[in-house]
């Protein structure tokens, strides 16, 4: 398994740490973890560097996760990492909206490391193979 550079976007620093821990517990080999507290910060990181996998909350202040995936979709990026939404919102319309803006799937909070592995890694893996 290649080492992964993950971007975790959530307004809660505690939740960001839990997502990171879940990725590690799921056996995902993280070489770098970048954190953003809202969509605007995440856009800055996406513009700056290479990210392999993005895990993003929906309900955040400043810029929410839906606006983030929408604006990211419109950006001209050399590489497009898969985005998995992690949210308390079970709203079907939010999920459909996120998918229409390029998100690959979603995980509902509360989540287990197995769910993070199942969703996060499978989408990264599919994307990685497709780009090879």
């Amino acid at each position: 398994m290649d080492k992964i550079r993950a971007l975790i976007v959530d307004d809660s620093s505690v939740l960001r740490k839990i997502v990171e821990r879940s990725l590690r517990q799921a056996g995902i080999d993280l070489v770098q973890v970048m954190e953003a507290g809202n969509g605007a910060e995440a856009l800055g990181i996406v513009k700056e560097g290479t990210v392999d996998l993005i895990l993003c909350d929906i309900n955040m202040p400043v810029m929410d996760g839906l606006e983030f995936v929408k604006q990211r979709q419109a950006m001209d990026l050399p590489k497009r990492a898969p985005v998995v939404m992690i949210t308390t919102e079970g709203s079907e319309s939010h999920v459909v909206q996120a998918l229409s803006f390029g998100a690959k799937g979603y995980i509902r909070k509360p989540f287990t490391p197995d769910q993070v592995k199942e969703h996060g890694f499978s989408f990264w893996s599919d994307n990685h193979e497709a780009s090879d």
Partner: protein
Amino acid sequence: MKPATELLAGQGHETWLPLLQRAAEEVFEIMLGAKLEPLSEATSVPASEITSMVGLAGQLCGVMTLRCSADMAKLIAAKMLGVAPDQANQQLWDAIGGICNMVAGNFKNKLTGLSDKCMLSVPTVITRGDYTFQSLADAGTLEIMMTFENNPIRIALEVHS
């Protein structure tokens, strides 16, 4: 299970209590690896020092609150982060807000047909307990009292409409 719209029309909010309890138990089990226990009559309930609030808007309007002591909040943050309680001081607001948010989300997702028609606010956390909570559009309150490692925790949903 009856759809949420039917329950709202009939004001049968008391039937939501087991769902609220299950929503809270699941969040604690999954995110903290800890079990919430029913509050025994012998357990003394100290004044709440930390209150987290999440607003619900849409077909169900109300406020979800989670109240506990500062030590309990610290313990929750420590469990979430996997650190000792004395290392969790800086994150306790964040942790309590996150837990309340997940309980509110998990609860509304258990109400058939409501998940798409009810949105959550970002959490607000109040410290200290010397205040009175009063709603001007109160259509009822659901409240559960549980314990987490022998510390009482109070979770309530003030239903507005």
